[in-house]
C-alpha cells in the first residue's frame, strides 16, 4: 500500500481541524486537549498535537492529511510532518489580520528549505469583514503565481476545491 501525505497548516484557529474533518473518510484522529496557554483566549479547545485524516484513492494508494499544531511551541513538529509531503495547504483566518504575520512565518518555514507545492486557503469567507483572497495575497506578500483560494473549511465542496487546486499545482510539477 502506497501512502502520500498532504499537510494542512496555519495559525491557531485558522480552521485546520475543520478542514480535515470536512473531507476525511474516517473520523478525524485529533489530539485536541483543553488549551492551557493563551490560545484559550481564542478558542476553548485547540489543537495541541495534530489532526489526521485519510482518503483512500484505491486498493493500493491512500492519501493522508496531517493538520499541524498551531502554536509556536510545537513548530518542531512541522519539520517532521513536512518530510516527504506531496503538498501543503496554508489556511488563513481571513477575518483576523492579527494572524497574518504568524501565517507568513509558517509559510517561510515550509518553503525555505523545500521546493514545496502549496496553496493558500483564505478561510471563513462566509463571515462579514473577511479579507478577500486578493487582499490576503497582498497582506501575505505572495507572488501572483501562488494560488490564494476562497475557502469555507466547514463546506466539503469548498475544501475539495482547495485540494484540487493544490493537486493541479502538483500535477504541473510531476513527471510524465
Amino acid at each position: 500500500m502506497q501512502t502520500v501525505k498532504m499537510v494542512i497548516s496555519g495559525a491557531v484557529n485558522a480552521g485546520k481541524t475543520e478542514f480535515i474533518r470536512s473531507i476525511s473518510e474516517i473520523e478525524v484522529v485529533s489530539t485536541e486537549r483543553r488549551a492551557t496557554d493563551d490560545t484559550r483566549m481564542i478558542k476553548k479547545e485547540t489543537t495541541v498535537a495534530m489532526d489526521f485524516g485519510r482518503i483512500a484513492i484505491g486498493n493500493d494508494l491512500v492519501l493522508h492529511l496531517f493538520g499541524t499544531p498551531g502554536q509556536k511551541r510545537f513548530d518542531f513538529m512541522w519539520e517532521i510532518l513536512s518530510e516527504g509531503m506531496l503538498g501543503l495547504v496554508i489556511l488563513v483566518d481571513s477575518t483576523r489580520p492579527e494572524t497574518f504575520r504568524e501565517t507568513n512565518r509558517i509559510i517561510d518555514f515550509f518553503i525555505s528549505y523545500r521546493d514545496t507545492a502549496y496553496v493558500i486557503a483564505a478561510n471563513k469567507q462566509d463571515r462579514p469583514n473577511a479579507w478577500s483572497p486578493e487582499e490576503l495575497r497582498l497582506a501575505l506578500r505572495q507572488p501572483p503565481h501562488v494560488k490564494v483560494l476562497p475557502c469555507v473549511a466547514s463546506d466539503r465542496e469548498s475544501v475539495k476545491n482547495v485540494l484540487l487546486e493544490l493537486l493541479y499545482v502538483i500535477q504541473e510539477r510531476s513527471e510524465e
Partner: protein
Amino acid sequence: MALVGNIRDFGLSDFLYLVDRGDKTGGLYLSHGQETALLFFEKGKLVMAVRRPEDQQPDLLVRLGLLSDSQLARARASLAMRGNGATLTEVILAENLAPREQLQGTLQNFSEEAVYGLFGWPEGEFRFEQNQRPDPAAPTIPSPISVDHLIMEGVRRIDEWGRIRDRIPSTDLVVRFLDQPGVRVRGVKLSAEEWRVFARINGRDSLAEIAQKTSLSEFDVCRIVYGFLTAGLVEVAKRARPLPLERSGAIEQPRLKRSLVNRIINRIKGL
C-alpha cells in the same frame, strides 16, 4: 466591505503596502486612545491625511497660509456652482487662486507629517472603507503622493527593535533583491547611509556581514533593511543549508508520476 484590524497586529507599513500594491481607493480611519487619524487614498496614492477632524475642512487652507479668507470664499462659491465631480483643489488651480507648486508642497508636507506620526503608534484600531473619497471641499493634495516614499520615511523614524524583529528575526539572514528592484527603487529616495547598505546587498551576505563591511551597527543595518523590506525592494531569507554533492538552493521534494497525481485528482473529484 470594510477591512478592520489593529496596527499592533497588522502594521501600518503593511497596510500602506497593501493599499499601494492593490491600487486601493478609500478612507483609512485610525484611532489610538484619544488620538485619531484619517487617510484617503486614490488608486493606491495618498490624497489627504489629517490627525484632527477639523483639518478636513477647507479653512485648513487659510490656516496654512495658502489662501486668504476671501479667496477661500470665492473658491467655495465656484465649487458650489460647478456641482458634481469637481473638487475644491481643482477649483483653486483652475482659478489660479494659489500656485500649484505651493499648494502641492504645503499640503503634501502637511499630510506626510500626519502619516509619519502614526508610525510611532504601538497599536490602534483601523478601518478601511473601500471606495470612500474625501468631501469635495476637503483640502486634498493636487497630485496624489506615492505610498512607497511614505513607508520609507515613516520606517526611518521608527526606533524600536520589536517591530523590526517581526520581519528580521536574526542577523544571520541573507538579504537579496526582489526580481525587479529597479522598478521599485524609482519612487524611493535613499540617504547616504542607506546607499551604503543597499550597495552591499548581494544575496549572499548576512545582515551581520553587511554590518561588518559597512562599519554600521547591526541595529542600523536591520533598521535600514527593514525599510527596504517594507518598501518591497528586498527580501530576507535563511542561508541555504549546505547540501551533499555541493548542491545549492531548495531541497527538491521527490517528484511523483503524473498518473498517480491524476488518480488522486479523480478520486477527490468523486468525493
